[in-house]
């Protein structure tokens, strides 16, 4: 069931102005439709273009497709979140429902919120668009994940695996690197209670 959590504003890079956006918990048919009918064709198109842009292809080109939609529709597996602006899904986030436990030494074994996915619409991504549109969707979702962690009394602790081209951004947000996850083949990051407090108060 979709629930409205609050309104914030994203920046429209093209106009330079902030625009009203809404953050939701739970996805509905509109979000799934936005992904299938609008995001996906864009992504596939860009992936094909990248394959022949040798100088731009510093990262994912044709990575394996992950069928998250089926799992997300089964709410037992993921807690889902979306940010919408201009009547379109601009960002999606999936957080594992199952408890995950911290690997970072300073909080080893403590429950944290594991972010399975943070994805922003292809037209908002500097990697895919020469003129990316909205800025702030990823940031808003990360802060929402911390809020969810606090809601569960997990004190803001979160964990995630970053795509290679996003690693420096997660460093900047104050997350700590915990090493390469051999299963996911990505760098795993965590945020402690202290990191989360600093982040939200910065």
């Amino acid at each position, binding site marked *: 069931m979709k629930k409205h959590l609050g309104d*914030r*504003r994203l*920046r429209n890079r093209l106009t330079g102005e902030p625009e009203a956006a809404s953050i939701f918990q739970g996805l509905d048919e509109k979000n799934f439709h936005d992904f299938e009918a609008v995001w996906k064709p864009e992504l*596939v198109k860009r992936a*094909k273009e990248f394959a022949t842009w040798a100088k731009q292809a510093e990262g994912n080109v*044709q*990575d394996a497709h992950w069928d998250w939609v089926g799992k997300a529709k089964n709410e037992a597996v993921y807690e889902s979140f979306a940010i919408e602006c201009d009547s379109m899904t601009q960002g999606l986030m999936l957080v594992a429902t199952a408890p995950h436990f911290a690997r970072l030494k300073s909080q080893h074994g403590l429950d944290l919120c594991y972010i399975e996915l943070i*994805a922003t619409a292809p037209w908002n991504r500097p990697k895919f668009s020469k003129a990316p549109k909205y800025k702030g969707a990823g940031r808003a979702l990360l802060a929402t994940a911390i809020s969810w962690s606090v*809601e569960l009394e997990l004190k803001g602790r979160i964990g995630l695996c970053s*795509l290679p081209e996003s690693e420096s951004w997660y460093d900047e947000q104050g997350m700590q690197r915990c090493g390469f996850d051999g299963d996911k083949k990505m760098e795993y990051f965590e945020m402690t209670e202290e990191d989360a407090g600093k982040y939200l108060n910065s």
Partner: protein
Amino acid sequence: MKLLFSDEWLQRKIASDPDIETEAGPSLIGPPIEEIDSGKAAVMPTRNVVQMRIALGTFVHQLRQRDALTLPELATKADVSENELRQVETNPSYTASPRLIYKLSRYFRMPLNNLYQLSGRTFTVERRLYNEAVKYAAHSDDVTPLSGDQLQVLNGFVAVLNQLAEEASSMEHGDHD
């Protein structure tokens, strides 16, 4: 649930944060559906991924031999980790990072898309590339120094990779308006 960040906070962050990717978790990109439908690309089972990687490992090793470089020398010149390079050359269960593939493609001037497919990072692979890769690996011996025949086989594979990339590129440009 309460959102623990204000709009002011978000605007400040937006203003000061750099313009880079913020994605976490697996990539959502699927294979081009039309290529699967037309039979040009196929979904790869694991054993085929292993065969591709054997071809990739042999290829990297032989290119290195061709250029008379030791493994540490190549790692330095291509700006990649020695350990990862060793894994690529010798371990078909190893999935090379996108960065390594990119650096090797630049260093050896080989088409990136094809190397990506050889690394097993793609869900699908072009049939012709797969067939050529398997043929190449079968005819190559990555243990002995490159003989004249081996060099011919290597150059043949290089030519195929370049040709496939050119064909893909001209099709793209043909599709553009």
